[in-house]
């Protein structure tokens, strides 16, 4: 594999950090995705995030039409432990499966240990800086815009935003979302970001 596990994954992490520190930022992972020359049935952007963040110390689950097989891919590559949706550090929602449901089941942490709130990695069609979502909060100077696009089977269920608001209603409890699109672009919505639809 031409991907350098030290230097290329460091770059992936820095892009992810920039995206999460400044929500609305869209990071490009296409260069690193191209180096990941493994033929696997998972979005390479998602795989890069798994390689950068998961290992034997973490737990995860997959929600998709082929959860068992995709879960095998991730656990063989990272040695991460599989767990139920309510106990996983990372939840992969792939192929446009029910995001709202995964969010409701995910761990939101406790008041004493809010950092245990899970990270959801969600596949979407196309991320862009235009779109129906208006973002505000820490990391954003005034406001930012984000669109998820529409495309081949990766449309988010319309209830996902309400499910997120409900899940994150009692800050610091909540979940943090990472979005990866078909062209390996990445965006993040940490629990601190206020999101509303442009009416």
């Amino acid at each position, binding site marked *: 594999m031409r991907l350098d596990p030290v230097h290329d994954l460091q770059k992936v992490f820095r892009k992810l950090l920039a995206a999460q520190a400044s929500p609305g930022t869209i990071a490009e992972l296409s260069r690193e995705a191209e180096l990941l020359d493994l033929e696997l049935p998972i979005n390479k952007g998602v795989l890069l995030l798994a390689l950068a963040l998961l290992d*034997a*110390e973490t737990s995860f689950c997959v929600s998709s039409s082929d959860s068992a097989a995709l879960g095998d891919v991730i*656990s063989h590559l990272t*040695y991460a*432990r599989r767990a139920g949706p309510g106990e996983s550090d990372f939840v992969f929602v792939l192929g446009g499966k029910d995001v709202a449901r995964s969010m409701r089941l995910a761990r939101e942490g406790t008041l004493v*240990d809010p950092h245990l709130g899970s990270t959801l990695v969600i596949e979407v069609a196309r991320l862009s800086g235009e779109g129906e979502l208006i973002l505000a909060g820490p990391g954003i100077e005034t406001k930012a815009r984000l669109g998820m696009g529409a495309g081949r089977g990766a449309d988010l269920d319309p209830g996902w935003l309400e499910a997120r608001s409900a899940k994150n209603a009692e800050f610091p409890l909540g979940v943090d979302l990472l979005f990866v699109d078909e062209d390996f672009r990445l965006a993040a919505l940490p629990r601190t970001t206020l999101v509303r639809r442009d009416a």
Partner: protein
Amino acid sequence: MGYVAVRGGTEAIEASIERLKYERLRKGRTVDAKAIESGMRALVDQVMSEASLYDEALAALSIKQAEGSPEEAVFLMRAFRSTLPRSHYSLAVDSRHMRVERRISASFKDIPGGQVLGAACDYTHRLIDSGLLGETDEGAARWVAEYLERPVEGAEAGSSIREQEGAIDYVRSLGLLKARPLDEAEPRDVTKRAIEFPTIRSERLQILARGQTGAVTALGYAALRGYGATLHPTVGELRVGRVAVLVPNPLASAGAPGQAEGEAYYVGQIKITAVETLVPVSVPRGMGKTGIEFEIGFGLSFGQNETKAIAMSLLDQCLESGDKGSAVRDEEFVLLHVDSVEATGFISHLKLPHYVTFQSKLDSVRKARRPE
């Protein structure tokens, strides 16, 4: 006025490092790391324990580099340990399955298998032996050869794996041990996951085992003098010897519970000191009556470090009791202050410049003195 920049930090550091090397070499004799490994067993064992890294050659080299400072040697070992990829956890080692070199009990006059004194300072008289100044490698080799030829009577300690009942098993068979359900919970690795309070026992035992020998000894002493144990503990069994380390087959499916021993690989043996201390505790028996049962405190160190292992066993029992009656029963107080690298690091950080914080405080002091 000419500006004298405060520069030269790099040069100053380089000069300091050279000066340190000078101090290590100026008496004209270099120390052979192999000699340290061979003749300074106690220090090597202490450093391995506190570093939680079992490698006698590396410990000896660290001791050489540190000019004999346990604080510095442990620091070197721990920093090296930080760089090692951690791929496997061994199977739990039962310290009773040991190639015994020393085994004693204070609780019973005699125990199955007998009291084996083994190699210990306990029975020496602490009189400095100037004869050691004339020791030579050749003389040592001759003595060792002659020693090994001496006939040994009875059971050969150190040549067979001990399978006999231990003192603790005997006490258990009498029904005098406080009932305690077997805890099969997976131990947590404190070097990979920060502890949170309240801790679980595996975390406490690890921190104590890695603790600075002096710190653990001092707190164990305090516990013994009345700050912790309310009744007198007795060493049920102290044993020193070698145990085998097995690693489960890494190619078996990850996380398969209850790995059969037959599927494990032997990776080597280590020498350990294990101590089981019997601590009498009061137990209510109903109807206003109180009885006494025994709890076990457990202590462990790499190599032979008996004082620390015994002190650790006392602190284990103190912390198990949970009540924060005194400092040595307070897990935050004990566990957060026994680590050598943390304690020596923070204390020595007082040598760093603090003039900004001082300037800030000076400002407050001045303002507080100004009449309003």
